[in-house]
Structures are given as C-alpha cells and as structure tokens.
C-alpha cells in the first residue's frame, strides 16, 4: 500500500464531496434538523429536570459533543451505505480500472464522509452557542473537529463493511438507524456510563463512540484532558482495524 497515493486520493475524494455539497446544500440542512431538536428540546427540558449528574457543566453543554457526534455518525454511516448504490453505477467500476490502490478507494471514500461531518458541525455549533454553551478555546475546538473527522471516517468504513453484505438497496434507512442508534444510546453521549446497567456498560467500553465523546467533551467543554491521549489512541485503533476490514469487504462489493 502506497501511503502517498492513499493520501492523495483521500484529498481528491474530499474535494469531490466538497464540490457536491456546494452545488446542493438541501441535504445538509435537513440532516441538521434532528440534532438541533435534540439540543433545543431534549437538552432544554432535561436541564430543567436536572435528573442526570453532569458535574459543574450545564446539561446542554454536557450533551453537545455527543449530539455533534451522533449527527456526524449518522451522516457517515449513510455515506458508506451508499456504496451499495454505487456498486450498480459505473463510477465504482471505473475507479477499479484506474491505477489507484484498491484500499485507497475505500479509505478515500470513508474520509470524504468527514467533509460532510464538518458541515454538520458548522450548522450545529452556532445553535449550541445560542443556547449558552461555552467552548473552551479555538485550538481545542479545532482539535476536537479533527477527532470527529477521524471517527466519521471509521464509521463510514463500518457501514461499508455492512453494505458489502447487502444485496439490494432496500432497508437502507432501517439499517442506518440500526447501526447509529445503539452506538449513540450505549455510549456516554447523553449520560455518564456509570448510570447504565452493567451489561450495557461493557458494551459502552467497546463502543468507539464513547471514546470520541469523551475526547471531544474534554476538548470542547470540560477542559479535563486526563484521558485524552487514551481516547485518541482508542479511536486510532478503531480506525485502523475498521479500514483493514473494509478494504477486505470491498472485494465482495465488486463482484
């Protein structure tokens, strides 16, 4: 595997996504509605109830990183699943006959999901700020955006693996939900892991979403960086493993 080729192709795929988004932004806006509702309605109500211990930060601030991640994960998972569509279109076939290494097609495609995620962040963060959420500083914020970017790529690859088992494009929505919802609810996105039943806690420890939330919450809201390195390491391991499996699963998509 030629790293430079992979990186170059990743860049091209991201540019492609960027250009597509610039031409048609409707999907971007519609996908931002749900997370904004989470913050505005659910967040506000739960802040009043004060049912969940969140230390010295407000509940809305506590869930903002989780909501961002839920939204970007959802976008990435769908982005990966779309490969089933592309199996029937000519673009994928054509890409296979270019000198690109095959793994770069998968990884490039996955990281392009990150571009869509960035746009989600741009739409959701201003709403959070209007609701009074305070971010620590710009440098930390940018670092957390990079983390979200990496996680998005991983989740897109995860959905490529699942897509490789799908024969048709039906049940698309259902499968998308079935992947994202457990990841979201069985993580520390909305409540501390300690509040969950033991069995779900174990799942949460293997859930990459938990580490992503932990890292971004530290960088955006609490400033407590004690577990940051460990979280980033966990995310990197997740990405690498999932990229390898997605590259293997890709064979099944081609034939």
């Amino acid at each position, binding site marked *: 595997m030629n790293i430079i080729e992979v990186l*170059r*192709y990743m*860049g*091209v795929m991201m*540019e*492609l996504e960027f*250009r*597509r988004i610039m*031409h*048609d932004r409707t999907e971007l806006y519609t996908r931002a509605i749900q997370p904004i509702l989470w913050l505005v309605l659910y967040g506000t109500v739960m802040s009043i109830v004060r049912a969940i211990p969140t230390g010295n930060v407000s509940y809305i601030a506590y869930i903002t990183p989780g909501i961002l991640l839920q939204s970007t994960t959802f976008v990435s998972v769908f982005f990966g699943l779309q490969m089933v569509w592309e199996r*029937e*279109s*000519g*673009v994928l*076939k*054509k*890409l*296979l*006959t*270019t*000198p*690109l290494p095959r793994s770069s097609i998968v990884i490039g495609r996955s990281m392009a999901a990150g571009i869509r995620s960035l746009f989600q962040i741009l739409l959701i963060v201003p709403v959070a700020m209007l609701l009074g959420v305070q971010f620590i500083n710009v440098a930390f914020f940018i670092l957390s955006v990079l983390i979200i970017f990496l996680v998005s790529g991983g989740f897109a690859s995860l959905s490529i693996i699942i897509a490789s088992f799908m024969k048709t494009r039906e049940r698309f929505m259902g499968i998308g939900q079935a992947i994202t919802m457990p990841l979201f609810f069985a993580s520390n996105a909305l409540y501390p892991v300690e509040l969950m039943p033991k069995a779900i806690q174990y799942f949460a420890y293997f859930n990459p979403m938990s580490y992503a939330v932990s890292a971004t919450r530290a960088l955006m809201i609490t400033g407590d960086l004690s577990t940051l390195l460990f979280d980033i390491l966990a995310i990197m391991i997740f990405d690498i493993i999932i990229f390898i499996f997605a590259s293997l699963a890709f064979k099944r998509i*081609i*034939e």
Partner: protein
Amino acid sequence: MAKTAIHAEDLVKIYANNFKALNGISLSVEDGKTFALVGPNGAGKTTLIRILTTQIRPSSGNAFVEDLNVLTQDDEIRRIISYVPQEISVWTDLSGYENLLIYAKIFGIQKEERKKRIDEVLNKMGLYSVKDEMVRYYSGGMMRRLEIACALLTKPRILFLDEPTIGLDPAARKVVWDELKSFKEEYGITIFFTTHYMDEADMYADEIALINRGELIKKGNPEELKGLIGGEIIQLELDGYDEEILYKIRELDFVNEVFREGNEIRIVTKGKGLELFDFLDFIKRLGIKIKKISLKQVSLDDVFLKYAGSSIEARGRAVEVARVRSRIRKA
C-alpha cells in the same frame, strides 16, 4: 506479424451463484484496431471486458493486455488502459468540467498539464460550450461523450467501451463514433468495445467476435462474417406455391440457402451479382405470380441467426428498454 494488443486464452468465469458467464473464450486483438464483441444481453460481454480491465479475476484461463498478464501485472495494465462502463460513470451533481478535473486528479495528472488536457478532450468531444453546466442536465449522448472524454484524459493505449451507445438515438450514436474515430486516428489507440447493435459493429469495427452464452461463435472482419452467409437475401411472397417450387429454387446454381417463414420465402444468394434478374426470369418461366419481392443486404444479425440459432435484435429489445429506464432513474 502485427503486435497483439489483447490476447485471451480459454477464459472461464463462474460467479458465486454458480452462473457460468464465460465458458472458455480465446481471442486476440491486433494493435491499433477497433474490435467489437457482439452478442445478446447475458452473453458474457461485460464479464469479459471486466476481466480484461482487471476488475475481476477469471475462474480459469488467462489474458494479456499488451503482453501484461491480467493475473499478475494488473497494476501495470491499469496504467495503459481506460474504460467506460455501461452504466453512468460521471457524477451528475457536478459540472462537466469538474468531472474531468476530479478524474484528472485521480489519475495524478500534474497541475500544469491538467487544464490543457481537459480543454483538449472537451474540444475533441464537442463539449466545451457546456462544460460548466451540471451533468444531470446533459442529454444521454452528451453524458456518453463526457465519459469518453474522462477516459481519454490519460491518453490510454487501449480504450475499453462497454455498450458505448446503449440507449442513444442514431444521431447521437453517430456523433459519439465520429469523435472516437477522429481520436483513434490521431493517437493510434486500440479500441475494444461491446455492443448488441449489429449495425454498429458492422460500421465501426475492423474485427468482430460474435459471442453467445459465454462462447465464441465466429470471428472475423465484417465482410468475412457476412460472406459466411452469402451475397444477398431475396425476400418474396408468391401467389400460391408448393414444396416442389421451393425445391427447384434450392437447386438453382446461385442459391445458397432457402428458408420459409410463414408466407415469406427468404433466399440467400451466393455472390454479389445480378442474381435477382436471373431469379425473376426463372419465376416467370414457371409462370408463377409474385406478390411481393425485395432485396436485402446480409446483415450481421443474419450471421448470428445462422450460428447461434436465434436473432440478437429480437432478444435485445426488452432487456434494453429496462436497462435504459434504470439508467435514467439513477441519473
């Protein structure tokens, strides 16, 4: 002997669902020629082209593209070929120019070179004036020409086209082929294409291979193939006839074969002469009245009909309509 651009040896492909798409195909294509792979839908055309373009591997057999082995040197093959799949392979939510830009970047064409090459292929394919429009507003023919433009960006030595004019009207088909021919003349590339339009193969190919059910039926240049059948076809309806007349016609020295379909009699003549006049004399002497008569050139479809036992055109239609619809839906 001329250089060989493509050489396939006993290719077999069996898919995971046990469908045998190719059943031992061998063929060679000379460098610089236009080669057509002709057959009905499901004959194995796309499978063969996908093996030659290193997308999938054969179950057994081997193939070479400019002496490079598809099994072991696929990386190198991908550097010298270009491929246009049957399905839409451009992004319809980008402009024509952006599509070419993205492909140029995928292929790693250097920045200084990029603009020049993109403008060149846009001009060649007659798309310069619409380059900034969204591809989804392009006509089918324009979309095809953009796809070919994308394929030509890298100046390939061999161009693979899978059903290049499927779903296009005759005028649009002609434009596509005129552009292809001029490009081929300029750069001397080899073109390997599949089609189920017999007339297309007849008009544009130097060499044709007829395939059916994963097997090669006949191979040759269009004239050779049509020569297998005979010269011309006389179609006629007679006012009353019997088997004896048919027998007598069959015995005529210029007649190759006689078929009967309902009231219609089809006579395949041996050469390209003035046999129609001889035939009219013969019928007059018998004192039979002719209700209808017409003369038709032998087409490749007649060749296919003879060797595969069924007509390619008739089988093609329904599937094609379905496919064209799905193409439109996806766009």
